[in-house]
């Protein structure tokens, strides 16, 4: 063990448990304990509270403590917080309230984690909870922690219903009461049953408990205690009462009835009744039986038995009252700290010794670099392929900037026609590439593969799964998979956590697929460990349309190729520029029909002087052999002589030709209606060419990030488009002066932005 004192993080906020367990830890020699300061605003946390009283005892830097205090220790604390935790703490207690916490602990904490368990309802096990809440990772992460995780049970039998992988990590740390002193002030003057049943309106379990009680005892005088977050509007329900009223209730009510026959869980209030000297009538078969209640006169085997005893108590049968009150004190014995301390001391000694032994015997492992896969899921070329390369480069550069060098592998479909070798000549240093093919697995194969990978208990939720097959190790050498776009045809077999890089949800705005056809894409985003987007607009659609929760969404800056480093192409003399450049392709959302209408108005009505040069993939014969969605548009174009004369369709140009054409243009025209934006306007700016763009959110964001000073038009109104085109004839020269300088563009280079990408990726490693 290191020379630092043994510090423990007790990452719970349960008030009564804290009152017992924190002093108990101190009693066995743990002097420094961190307590969490944040918890979820869930009604189920009704017994939770925050205290700062242990902070003063911590001998860690105040700044570190401040960061720890900021975290949500029920979900996913930051990497920085885990670094601090690892620096100062060896042991933590946690509860599995949200699935992310187990993954976070397994991925980040180097000490020992004690999963604190207080028992669950009959028929439920902790194993089933793990599998239900975290079907892809729960068991795997638990097992991956090996000897660094313990099943810290509050009652010694809880592990008996759990499978072996949990049961063999059992550690008995008994739950007790902070105060077991008997406060015998009970008078019982109010001849009513006191029945505690919280949150009747919000919790199905307690609603049933309430209904069962009313059915069995509703005809007898009674009062229902327990906090009610939402008023259930039921008679005799007291709801929250001030302390003095509570004390009065414990003093005056004739008896308490405890309903639970749960063998693995117990509430505090029966012990409170015993402490107060109030007769406790309880049902047999529950945990009280194990705590010494089996032979007690207040124990009832049936409801009829309970009714008989309760009636006698309500009738003030002093004999029975005395008999119950006198004998029930035995229930407090196992809850006394003095009776629990040995188990705690022994348990924690085992934990510390095991940790120490583990650390001393740890071999000097050669840690390999983290490896990230950037996967192009379908045969993308053009902009998306370029974006994938930039993403890979940003991760590689970012990791180096953080001193955490990672290897990045770019994966593309194994199709040499689609992806010839020269396509990747520009891959930067630190980025390797690997061809792959999708492999489809049916449910049975998927189950087998997951079992082999250590995911015990994982069951398929889909008929079919896909997995990338790279001919090597099916990408299992990579620690994280990042899929460029959400175009996964079926669920990805969850062998590794994966991120999606989503550029847009175009289908929300343009009818590009039939209803429901995007279901698998949306499901892919919801299953991902994280979704990265590059515009605020897509960020919002990911929240609003894909339904991805905010904590899994990351908005990152747009990455543009290094235009600022390009050698400038020889400029055309300004006065000789007699055309503007329309960059487009054949996709439906490119707004061709309105653009052609606008050009018609521009030339025929507004006497437009500049020629229009069109370039882009599949545009050479766009008006001669139009695809079905452009038939009407082609008719319009071909019916106009002036359009045919003034508009030139160049088709897809090579890089050099394109840049030459761009550099000679008066301005660039972007007439698309809605997408994730086009970097052609950034490239144009780099060549000193201003741009006129359709006004939509992604372009607005691009304009802001790259300081482009674009001119705008309404892409839904052809006349407006034509008028602004006409106006550009007069203003494009002045607009050149508004373009960003090379220095300004350089600030948007990958070197400048890569760190943002790595910050997101490293949190998941």
């Amino acid at each position: 063990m290191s020379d630092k004192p043994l510090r423990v993080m007790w990452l719970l906020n349960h008030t009564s448990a804290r009152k017992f367990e924190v002093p108990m830890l101190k009693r066995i020699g743990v002097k420094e304990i961190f307590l969490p300061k944040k918890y979820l605003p869930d009604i189920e946390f009704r017994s939770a509270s925050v205290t700062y009283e242990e902070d003063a005892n911590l001998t860690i830097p105040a700044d570190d403590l401040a960061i720890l205090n900021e975290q949500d220790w029920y979900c996913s604390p930051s990497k920085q917080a885990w670094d601090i935790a690892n620096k100062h703490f060896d042991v933590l207690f946690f509860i599995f309230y949200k699935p992310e916490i187990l993954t976070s602990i397994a991925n980040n904490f180097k000490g020992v984690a004690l999963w604190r368990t207080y028992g669950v309802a009959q028929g439920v096990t902790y194993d089933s909870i793990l599998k239900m809440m975290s079907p892809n990772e729960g068991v795997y992460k638990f097992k991956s922690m090996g000897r660094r995780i313990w099943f810290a049970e509050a009652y010694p039998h809880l592990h008996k219903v759990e499978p072996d992988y949990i049961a063999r990590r059992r550690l008995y740390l008994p739950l007790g009461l902070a105060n077991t002193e008997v406060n015998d002030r009970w008078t019982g003057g109010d001849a009513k049953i006191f029945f505690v049943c919280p949150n009747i309106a919000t919790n199905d379990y307690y609603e049933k408990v309430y209904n069962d009680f009313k059915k069995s005892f509703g005809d007898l005088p009674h009062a229902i205690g327990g906090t009610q977050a939402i008023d259930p509007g039921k008679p005799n329900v007291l709801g929250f009462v001030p302390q003095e009223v509570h004390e009065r209730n414990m003093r005056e009510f004739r008896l308490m009835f405890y309903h639970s026959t749960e063998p693995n869980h117990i509430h505090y209030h029966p012990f409170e009744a015993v402490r107060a000297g109030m007769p406790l009538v309880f049902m047999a078969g529950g945990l009280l039986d194990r705590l010494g209640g089996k032979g007690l006169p207040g124990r009832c085997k049936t409801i009829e038995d309970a009714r008989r005893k309760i009636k006698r108590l309500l009738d003030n049968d002093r004999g029975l009252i005395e008999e119950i009150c006198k004998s029930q004190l035995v229930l407090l014995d196992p809850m006394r700290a003095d009776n629990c301390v040995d188990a705690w001391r022994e348990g924690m000694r085992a934990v510390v010794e095991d940790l120490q032994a583990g650390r001393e015997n740890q071999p000097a492992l050669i840690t390999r670099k983290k490896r990230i896969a950037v996967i192009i899921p379908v045969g993308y070329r053009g902009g998306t392929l370029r974006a994938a390369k930039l993403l890979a480069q940003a991760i590689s550069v970012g990791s180096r900037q953080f001193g955490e060098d990672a290897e990045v592998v770019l994966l593309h479909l194994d199709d040499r026609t689609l992806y010839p070798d020269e396509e990747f000549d520009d891959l930067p240093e630190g980025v390797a590439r690997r061809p792959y093919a999708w492999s489809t697995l049916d449910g049975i194969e998927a189950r087998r593969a997951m079992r082999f990978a250590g995911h015990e208990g994982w069951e398929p939720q889909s008929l079919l799964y896909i997995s990338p097959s790279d001919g090597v190790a099916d990408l299992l050498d990579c620690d994280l998979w990042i899929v460029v776009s959400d175009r996964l045809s079926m669920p990805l077999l969850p062998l590794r956590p994966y991120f999606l890089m989503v550029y847009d949800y175009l289908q929300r705005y343009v009818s590009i697929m039939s209803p429901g056809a995007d279901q698998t894409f949306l499901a892919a985003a919801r299953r991902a460990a994280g979704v990265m987007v590059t515009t605020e607009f897509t960020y919002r659609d990911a929240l609003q349309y894909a339904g991805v929760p905010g904590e899994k969404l990351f908005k990152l800056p747009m990455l543009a190729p290094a235009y600022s480093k390009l050698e400038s192409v020889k400029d055309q003399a300004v006065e000789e520029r007699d055309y503007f450049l329309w960059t487009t392709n054949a996709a439906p959302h490119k707004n061709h029909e309105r653009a052609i209408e606008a050009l018609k108005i521009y030339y025929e009505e507004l006497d437009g002087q500049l020629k229009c040069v069109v370039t882009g993939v599949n545009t050479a014969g766009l008006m001669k052999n139009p695809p079905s969605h452009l038939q009407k548009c082609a008719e319009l174009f071909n019916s106009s002589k002036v359009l045919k004369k003034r508009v030139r369709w160049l088709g897809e140009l090579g890089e050099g030709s394109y840049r030459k054409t761009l550099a000679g243009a008066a301005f660039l025209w972007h007439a698309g209606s809605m997408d994730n934006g086009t970097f052609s306007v950034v490239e144009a700016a780099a060549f000193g060419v201003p741009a006129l763009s359709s006004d939509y959110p992604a372009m607005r964001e691009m304009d802001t990030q790259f300081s482009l000073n674009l001119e705008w038009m309404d892409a839904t109104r052809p006349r407006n488009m034509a008028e602004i085109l006409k106006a550009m004839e007069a203003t494009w020269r002045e607009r050149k002066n508004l373009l960003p300088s090379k220095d300004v563009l350089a600030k948007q280079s990958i070197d400048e932005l890569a760190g943002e990408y790595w910050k997101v990726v490293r949190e998941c490693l």
Partner: protein
Amino acid sequence: MSVKRYGMYLAYPPTVDLRHDGLGRYMASFLKGAEDRKDLHFVLVCPSWAKEGLQALFKTEGVTGSFELITPVGKPVILRWYEAYVRYKNRVRNRSLWYRVISSLTHRLNWWVSHIERRLGNAYSVFALLPVFLELAVFGVLFLLLAALLSPILLIAVVAFAAVVGLKRGVRAATAFVRQEALKRAKGIGVAQLQYLASRFGALLHAPKDNEWVLQLYKYMEEAESERMLRLIHGMKDVRAWYSPSAFWPAFNKIRSPKLMCVPDVVLTEFPVTFSKTGGSRYLKSFEAVEEAIRGGQNFVTYSDAIKYGTLVERYGVRPQDVTTILHAPSDLSRWVSVKNVADGGATERFYCKILIRSALARSSVPGYSAEFLNSSFKYLFYATQFRPNKNLTALITAYEYLLRKRHIGHKLLLTGSPQEFSPVRELIEKFSLQNDVLCLYKLPVHELAACYKLADLAVNPSLSEGGCPFTFTEALSVGTPVVMARIPVAEEVLTDSELQAATFFEPYDWRDMAKRIEWAIEHRDALLQLQAKTYSVLAKRTWGDVVNEHIDALERIADAGKEQALPGAANRLRVA
């Protein structure tokens, strides 16, 4: 204290779930408003089939107080059969016996094969294999014997199975043939009649309330039941006066004691074409019933002056002095989502509401999309309404499509009706491909309704016609959500402040104006909320106790008169300046 008894006449047709019915919730509020009046006792007389529904409604709404529920004894036989069929259809299905037998046999056979294989694998000598061979031989002989014994039964079973399958297919083919022939010969009245008869039985089990034959059956049942109810009513001499909260029941006029009928609205007159295409003859029958009830009535209550003068006085020639306008009290939903004794700025309430919304989303019109919608903090517009022609849903969805696609507001639109039961909405959602953005949450329980209101960015009510000021205003404001509404007379009667009107109302016949108002309200949410909260605080002073008191005043007047006579002018009003 002497207790005065008043009667309430309820004649709902069979199979209506009052928990999802506006009138049901109105009645619950009314009876809760009477809880503090210890001098009153209500006698509710309803058909035998409505008793369970009313009890469920009162349980859900937490209605207690001094009232009793009286029904004639025994339900019509045919209704009992139908209810038994529904219970059978909705039963929790266990695996069939056949399935269980087969799976058990398969399981045992698998075990036996594994057992033989294991023994084969574990045999290290030929002698060790002998018991295995013996077991196999015994099994083989037993199997052959069994096959020989069962072969006649098996043969019969195969023949019977083939006959059943053949019969089923034959019936199906014949039905298809009849249908095709009927289509071919549209004038072939005999075939059409056959087809009509067949459709009667099919629809009976599928959507009974929209089937004409079923409606006719319901009518006969209701007529018989109302006679039985009247016999009960006429035996209650201590009831001072009777009140009907709806104008759907003309038999109410047969009560001989003083009586008062509420006419919420006669909305079908304003949308004749769309209503004619919705719900088959159901609406026509309701309409005829309402007209008959109004024409036979003497004393009326409305929720607004707009209905009093615009409908009763002008259209039906009722004298103004025979009509009392009693405005609604606010519908306060806050108790369903107000978390007690937690001072965290509403975080726990919002967390709880998100859980409720997740539960509601799982039952939406597109469960495949919304059940796994993991972001419970999404933004949305909310319109709680049943789908009816007067609700102006077409304009709302058109405005929403514009806001989403052209103005990029990003919000979803949550509605509470069933698109399957109202084709204009379904078709429009499909036309605009808005299946994933216009989500219909059908049959919301009240706590989920409250949660939907609370987490909405904005509540919208574009309704063109209502009986009183729409509850949307108070329901939304009671949980801190601002509202924009159609400028219609019933709303203007209550929300009279000009600044409030300018901020809240839009022109409901112009979807562009609606879109503009919604967009403005989203951008100025806090200011709008602040403005509307002032009005809400004034409206909130009116309670359901006040509503009950005004009804009692009206009932007392007609009771005191000892005979049915005209009522004096309008009672106490609530106006917001």
